């Protein structure tokens, strides 16, 4: 296996036995490669298999088939390497509600003791923007602050890989921007980041590459710019004429707009020109499969 891969997955499957309806293939033959130092986003609707996949990579769940390597180790079979491996992994789970009676500082300082080479807890608290809440009890934090504490606990061990499972669910827009800045900063320091999200703007803002999972299968892996052929898709030109909206799809929108301008002899009423958004492509993609 190449050394520049932080995560490699081949043919991963996970089957759940469900009462009545027999078995459900929650993960159905996934292949995945995440390079060292990249931010990789997994997108998909609820129940698509994102969390199951990530929890297999984190060593929380076993698998029913396929090969998995995370930092060169099989998370389901760590043996004596368990401690050394976990020492290099940071995990931010989907939702937690623990340590209500401790303060932010007490919790971050305590978790730093578990690792061989932790970050300075004080600067971690500062980085996630909780310095004003450092002495506050966890039960008094807002949802967004709580999530930032989760991230603080995920990074205090100075991990090589950080797993983030839907990290900004419930954030207000400002908190999300601040959070994205933090994630970019971590990438800048060389941390590999695997992120699941169902926010397309989040994937677009952060990820170097995006994978889409639907029904346990990966249906696309690409950069956000080239996602679903977005870079080569036709642009849509919209204007108002003869009492209704007119639309035209074109590979050469500039020429079409010039033609329209000539026809109207100046301003084209209510003119818009749009490329398909990531969301348009994504919705079409998961709708088709």
């Amino acid at each position, binding site marked *: 296996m190449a050394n520049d891969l932080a995560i490699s997955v081949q043919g991963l499957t996970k089957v759940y036995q469900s009462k009545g309806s027999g078995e459900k293939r929650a993960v159905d033959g996934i292949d995945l490669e995440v390079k060292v130092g990249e931010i990789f986003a997994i997108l998909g609707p609820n129940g698509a298999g994102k969390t199951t996949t990530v929890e297999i990579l984190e060593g929380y769940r076993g698998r029913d088939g396929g090969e998995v390597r995370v930092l060169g180790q099989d998370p389901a079979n760590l043996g004596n390497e368990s401690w050394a491996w976990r020492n290099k992994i940071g995990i931010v789970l989907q939702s937690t509600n623990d340590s209500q009676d401790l303060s932010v500082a007490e919790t971050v300082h305590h978790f730093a003791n*578990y*690792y061989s080479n932790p970050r300075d807890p004080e600067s971690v608290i500062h980085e996630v923007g909780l310095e004003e809440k450092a002495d506050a009890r966890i039960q008094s934090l807002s949802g967004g602050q709580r999530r930032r504490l989760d991230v603080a606990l995920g990074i205090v061990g100075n991990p090589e890989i950080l797993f983030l499972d839907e990290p900004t669910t419930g954030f207000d827009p400002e908190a999300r921007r601040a959070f994205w800045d933090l994630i970019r900063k971590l990438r800048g320091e060389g941390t590999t980041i695997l992120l699941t999200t169902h926010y397309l703007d989040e994937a677009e803002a952060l990820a170097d590459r995006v994978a889409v999972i639907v029904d346990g299968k990966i249906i696309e892996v690409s950069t956000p710019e080239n996602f679903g052929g977005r870079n080569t898709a036709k642009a849509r030109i919209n204007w108002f004429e003869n009492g209704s909206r007119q639309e035209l799809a074109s590979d050469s929108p500039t020429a079409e707009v010039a033609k329209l301008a000539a026809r109207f002899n100046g301003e084209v009423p209510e003119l818009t020109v749009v490329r398909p958004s990531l969301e348009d492509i994504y919705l079409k993609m998961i709708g088709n499969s």
Partner: protein
Amino acid sequence: MKPNMVKVGFLRGGLEIKQFMRQRESVVFTLLFPVILLFIFGSVFKGQVGQSNVTFSQYFLSGMIASGLVNTGFQQLAIMIPIERDFGTLKRLRGTPISPVSYFIGKMILVFTAMIVQITALLVFGVAFFGLNLPTTIDKWFRFIWLILLGSICSAILGIAFSAVPKNGRGASAVVSPIVIILQFFSGVFFVFSDLPTWMQQFAALFPLKWLTQGMRSVFLPDGFAAQEVAKSWEISRIAIVLIIWAIAGTILALRSFKWSEK
């Protein structure tokens, strides 16, 4: 360098105690409940046990101390750990390099601290208001200390082992509490053990609480009272053996059955 497992365990112990002290209900319950029970039983049952000169309050004090070990160890952990599983505490820990052994050590320290506080409260209250007699010989104090040590290890480790049984935190108390209460009745905590039906005595003899209670009586009651025991003796070495067997069995069970998460 890899952090020391025992040191991390002690750090967890400190954190557990901090969390415990900040939950006022649990502090009040742990401290006051046994004292209230001693007060009720001491007030209702006046006079002496059987033909002896031992007061009922003195008899119940032994039982309350023994069952205090079961409350702060077995009962507390078997209820608390499923709640921690629900809240994601254990899942988060499992995602870090911490060893389960450190987690167990932390719990032991919590149990031990809560228990020392509880026993002190019982002794102070008992001596001040019920004229209870404390042991007068070094021998008995020494026995008292090893009974507390062995009893709390046994109780805590069985609590960790049993924490795998309740399906979730909400139901844990309903599963665990009746077991403890029945054992208390069967083991001579609320009644004079030798007055109980034989089948109840024999059933209780399978579990550690009966032996702990008997051990505590040997500490707090005069030596002559041994003749009134079912076996006509305190059976000190048998008590030690039973507790050690349960502690070993509990450790094996805890290591095998302990679950970081619900699935």
